[in-house]
């Protein structure tokens, strides 16, 4: 008897999806202690299929977190240290002449991994930044007339130091817009730091991280996120929040349409933490700051950490003023 072949695997239930997310988050907490909220948001960002910008001073565990994510999801991983002399080909790859066959073969660059860590992205020249950001947006690389598709699932995590801007090329706003979230880990609490001192042995914490899920499960998770129900009133709420940022007196440029889409997608992913297949206004507010703060251009000319705090503060004010649907 012929039975119809199952073309696609069924979506995981919200409960299954939450279990996966919590499993990953618990796993990450082994490497990055005392940052449960940030870890959850990072996992949310990855589950939503977005790229993540980690902005913090060195030594707070940014790289560790990214590596732990790659290990937890069993993703192929590469780390690129962005420097002033880094060229696009160093990231994307290049055509290499093969003397024996007298042909040019494509040698893929480090971007051809499922999780790419672009360390200190703002130190690379704009041309190199653009090459990466274009790959992030398109999910593919075009080189010498040939198109090379990036592996799936594909995620870029970039880091930058919010304080030390000397000799850097700050990311243009349009490129910042391509990151779904911007997170700051911040220093751990004194208790956590003390515990680190007493408990950590010679081995790197990342070595303790084992894979707890698979890239296929992450792909299913992303499909589940995309299938989350977004009620019309919640969608209107998202738009009203974005409009409020555009109308705010202290904000030079408010949230873009891409930001609205990003906020909706992040809220969808956040709903999975509650094992829900629908989005609530609470989900939207939970991801509002990480999704929008880095996309706003404030009227004050401050830069760095101060700007980040001010933007977050303005977004909190906006979320208080815009009534949520009841």
């Amino acid at each position, binding site marked *: 008897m012929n039975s119809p072949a199952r073309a696609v695997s069924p979506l995981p239930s919200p409960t299954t999806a939450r279990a996966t997310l919590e499993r990953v988050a618990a796993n990450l907490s082994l490497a990055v202690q005392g940052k449960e909220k940030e870890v959850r948001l990072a996992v949310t960002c990855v589950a939503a299929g977005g790229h993540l910008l980690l902005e913090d001073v060195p030594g707070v565990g940014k790289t560790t977190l990214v590596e732990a994510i790659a290990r937890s999801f069993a993703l192929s991983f590469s780390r690129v240290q962005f420097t002033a002399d880094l060229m696009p080909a160093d990231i994307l790859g290049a055509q290499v002449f093969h003397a024996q066959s007298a042909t040019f073969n494509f040698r893929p660059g480090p971007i051809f991994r499922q999780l790419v860590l672009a360390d200190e992205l703002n130190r690379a020249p704009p041309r190199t930044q653009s090459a990466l950001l274009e790959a992030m947006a398109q999910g593919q690389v075009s080189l010498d007339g040939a198109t090379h598709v990036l592996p799936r699932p594909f995620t870029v995590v970039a880091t930058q130091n919010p304080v030390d801007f000397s000799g850097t090329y700050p990311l243009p706003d349009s490129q910042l817009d391509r990151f779904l979230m911007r997170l700051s880990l911040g220093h751990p609490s004194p208790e956590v730091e003390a515990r680190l001192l007493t408990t950590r042995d010679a081995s790197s914490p990342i070595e303790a991280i084992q894979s707890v899920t698979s890239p296929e499960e992450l792909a299913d998770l992303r499909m589940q996120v995309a299938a989350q*129900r977004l009620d019309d009133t*919640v969608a209107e709420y998202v738009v009203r929040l974005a409009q409020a940022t555009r109308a705010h007196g202290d904000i030079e440029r408010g949230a873009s349409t891409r930001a609205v889409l990003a906020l909706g997608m992040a809220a969808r992913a956040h709903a999975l933490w509650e094992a829900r*297949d*629908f989005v*609530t206004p609470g989900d939207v507010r939970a991801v509002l700051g990480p999704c929008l703060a880095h996309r706003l251009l404030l009227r004050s000319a401050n830069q760095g950490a101060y700007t980040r705090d001010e933007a977050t503060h303005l977004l909190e004010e906006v979320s208080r003023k815009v*009534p949520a649907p*009841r």
Partner: protein
Amino acid sequence: MTRPNRLRLILRDLGTGAAFASMAVSGQLPIWALGLFVVALGVALTGRRPFARLPKLTAMLLVPLAGALYLAVASGRMDLVVAACSFAGLVAGQRLLSETSTATDGQVLLAGLLMVAGGAALSGELFFAVCLMAFAVLASLSLGLAVVEAAVPVGEPVPVRAVMRPLAVGTLFALLGAVAFFILFPRLNWNVGARRASPGLGTATSGFSDTVRLGGSGTLKSNPRVVLRATLTPDPLTEQLGAYWLGRTYDTFDGQEWSTIGAPKKRGRTRVTLRRGAETQVYQKVELLPAYGSRTLIALETPSKLGNALAHTPTGTRRTLLQELGGDELRFVEEGLGYSYEVYSVPPGTDTDPGKMEQLEHDQLLALPDNLDPRVTELARQVLGDEKDPLTAANKLSSWLQREYEYTLELGGDVTDPLTEFLFVRKAGHCEHFATALTLLLRSQGFQARLATGFFGGERIGDEYILRAGDAHAWTHVLVPGRGFVTVDATPPAFRANQSLELLESLVSIYEAIESAWRTSVVDYSFRDQMNFVRDLTRPPAGSGEKKRLDLPPLRAWVTAVLVGVAVYQAWRYLSRRKPRTRALEATRFVDAVERQLATVGVRAGDGETLEDVSARLTREAHPLAPTVSPLTRRYLEARFGQRALEPGESAQLLKGLKQAIAALPPKEKPREKAQA
């Protein structure tokens, strides 16, 4: 049939009934058309549609009815507009009893619209307006429900309760909008319809015809409709005026009917302009109301000058010509809904100059019918003896008639000789019988007399006197040398004035007041009124011209602007508040109830906090209510944003659980409740 269907059809049928009523209130539709429609409506309201099986045959029945109506119109027995209205009612009735479908609904409502238009042609009065509004509301609700019903998938229940309130609110706003449109939109006051509007309760009096048929009327005495309002100078200041208001007189009696010989010399006389003067005379400012139903001027006996007449028509108020007719009757040339004019009257019994009368007219005051029963003359002779003075004779006869005869409103039917019937057979009659008897008894003894008709009485309301239709009366004028015509009334005093019930009078008075306001504010509301309304808002009142002209609009303009602003703001707020509630209304009501319950123990949502936030906060704080509130919040969120609606009774069950949890709170949580209270 499902419940929502039934409700929609009932609203549709009632709306059609209201449309028919808008024509019926004119009182001009034939009784058979009224009966047929009422039966059809009654059957339709019970949910039965007997014509559904034979739609074509029943529709064909309308053809002969249309033919019959055409013949009635062609033969002059029925007015064209009335016939058209009757036919519209029949069409509506046929459709009401036919199969229900979208097409039929449209036809029924279209017929309703036509009937409303017919009602406007027949009557523009208060009852018509009430029916029109009822039709508009019911038809709108029915149409709204039909739209909702069409949008709901087959088999799914129609959310009647959920939609009726917004529908009702929408209809209310539409009505208010219509009122605003009526007040503010510039109107063009030409008389589109050829017909005049008629008084809402029908014509109150029988009018003043050229003849009075004895026994031909007599039921007016119990009609409490107000037909005349008058202010008198000098003001008698009495509650009951007890005066005779003269309309016209008759000098010829043929045994059955009173009439007047010939016509006066001056016909089609132009308007009479009155100037103040003649301080000894009684000055009256009179308004004849639509219920009066005649064009004859009324004045206190004995009128000496009448004029300054204005006719109130649907197209506005304007001056009108007067026409002098026989029987001292003065009539308005122009047809109007009502009239106002001024009169000077000589105090009763002091008119020394009855005017120059021709010999023919003098002779006519003594004329007797050819077939006068000889017993009449004999009777007069017996009562009067050899009395020579006309006034004494009249009083003697009057007293005798009042003593010997009874007053009744029961008519004796159409008899050959009503006077003989009254004097010798029934010995009971109404004012016309008494007045006729007195007049002819006097004439039989050579005293000149005539019949006068008009009103008797006058009831004080505020600063003015009113007359009711029931005050219509007939009496006798005796010509007394040197004093002119003197009134002598043979009707027993208790029966001269209106005899309607007090309760009925007060009810009719209320109606008259509303109708008067309706006519002033709606029917007669013209472009000029609109301009005046706007001008009054922006200019200082008349008489303040001496004051220094202000650049700013007057205070009332500001007040009006503020009131309008507040009204618009409130309406906007109400609508904007309703908008998000149109969906998942039950879940929203549920969350409101939950928040109210939580507030009783001091758990309140902060600035911008939702129940989701409150629940998370309670969980963080390990509040004893957290375990109860958390699943409840989850259920609300599912119902509101997850398309898993609350089951019937589920919200009540959840709230009950919350109340129990609140009641079971440890005492340390209770003080908060008291503190909040």
